[in-house]
């Protein structure tokens, strides 16, 4: 079964705060490069940047706890 490209984009962002910054610089190009549909590209334009940064940092910290 094919994984939803939106899930892949989220995994890529949650795996690295650096990716989040690249994404936020040009969301549309980043999303298209991840294979998102036009409708999905519109959806990622609405992501709250502060929440996304917070989430990525939180995941990074939790990964550190498990290392």
């Amino acid at each position, binding site marked *: 079964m094919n994984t*939803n490209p939106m899930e892949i984009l989220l*995994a890529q962002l949650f*795996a690295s705060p650096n990716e989040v910054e690249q994404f936020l610089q040009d969301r549309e190009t980043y999303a298209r490069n991840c294979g998102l549909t036009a409708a999905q590209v519109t959806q990622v334009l609405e*992501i*709250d940047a*502060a929440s996304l940064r*917070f989430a990525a940092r939180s995941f990074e910290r*939790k*990964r550190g706890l498990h290392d």
Partner: protein
Amino acid sequence: MSGRDRVGLAWRDELAAQIMLHLDFIDHLEIIAEREWSASRRRLDALRDLACQVSVSLHGVSLGLASSGSVSEGRLERIARLVGRVKPDHWSEHLSFVRAGGFEIGHLAAAPYAPQTLAGALRNLERAHQVVGAMPQLENIATLLTPPGSCWTESEFIGKVVCGAGAAMLLDLHNLYANACNFNQDPFALLDSLPLERVASVHLSGGQWENDPGGCSRLIDDHIHDPPVPVYELLEVLAFKAPQPLTVIIERDGHYPDFAALLEQIARARVALATGRARRREIELRQVA
């Protein structure tokens, strides 16, 4: 408290000696499955012995069942082997995804609350049931972001997965509380929006408020702080609304307090359960009269 309710702790090796000394006060122990994948035969025998003395569950943290992608057969087989060796009362996993497209998040994340994720989750759960021999109890997660592409609320998504799979729910009340705080929702209304009749187990844990550089505060679920008062209040309401037996587990992953403090948290959970149960009995008696 109903005679069938149970209150216990998440097993951590750091707490092992104290847990064994206080087993009379602990009704249930939850063991992280992935930490036992490389366990020696002697350790697995000890876990089996433990499961003969006290109710035990195995808790998975890395299957990523709530995903449009397929769950790893290898991971399911490892869970199945562990379940076969330890013979727990039940096993549980999170309603989350943890990897996609070769990217490992390393923690629990929410995929879009949408039909493609629902279909994947139901397919993964059916496979988990086949391989392990039992359906896992499904736990709600804490999230800081509503997944883009969602067409349902988190509660609607949980209801569709849990009911669609015929699964029981492991309700993490601190995750619920954190999501309510971070998305400006009433935690008691959020509790009401879940399929409470399917709740079989409950997690109680704690977290910490953190500020982002923009000055925005968020409650982070970290398992290294005590459960806050609203979590016990939610447990009391749950005990009032859900008449079925509940297994309540205190989760602590670090910054361990004196064991007496953990026993106090168990006692506090028992009080919350008893208070909710008593309120329900009182209303039922009034209705009969």
